[in-house]
């Protein structure tokens, strides 16, 4: 009984995080702000929902759920880093920052793509 209540609380918290992440994806002004909302809040929301399901459904064979959680926590940051870099290079606007472009000298424009065969 107590684990069902804990599971429901975890699942409700996770769904709340996902709803907030969806609001951020729809409402924020910038590609990078939307990515920040979707990756962090969406990832923690999915993790909490899976944890709640594992807690409420009995801990007999939790291996798949725990593997999913570990995989998501490991790969969401890498994937969002890759996507943010690609978005910046492809010329996305930085509307959320009003102090210019802090990456102007780090990732220069017209960088050569790695197309040379070796």
């Amino acid at each position, binding site marked *: 009984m107590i684990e069902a209540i804990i599971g429901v609380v975890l699942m409700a918290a996770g769904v709340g995080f996902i709803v907030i992440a969806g609001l951020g994806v729809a409402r924020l002004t910038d590609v990078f702000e939307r990515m920040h909302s979707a990756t962090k809040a969406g990832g923690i929301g999915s993790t909490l929902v899976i944890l709640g399901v594992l807690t409420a459904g009995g801990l007999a064979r939790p291996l798949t759920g725990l593997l999913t959680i570990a995989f998501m926590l490991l790969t969401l940051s890498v994937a969002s880093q*890759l996507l943010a870099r690609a978005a910046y290079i492809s010329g996305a606007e930085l509307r959320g920052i009003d102090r210019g472009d802090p990456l102007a000298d780090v990732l220069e424009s017209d960088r050569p793509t790695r197309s040379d065969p070796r």
Partner: protein
Amino acid sequence: MNGIAVAAAPILIAVLVVPLALAAYRMIRGPSHADRFVALDMLTAVSVALSALTALATGRRAFLDIGMGIALVNFVATCAFATLLERKSGGRK
């Protein structure tokens, strides 16, 4: 024993339609390709949570495997889309 959780799962699934609709709005509306990829990330997070809740609501543990498959596909898809976006773009203005 865990009747509360099984009863709560369909309600939470119904609530999850809201972020699904918001991500779909961003995917349709999004000005650039990067916005659409971000919306795809959001859709994946929602669908992993949906599959986990479906596993609880129906009592079939195979839906957890489906969630894991969605997470795996999302990582590879995001990496591939990022590489595509980086190669197709003509550089920052």
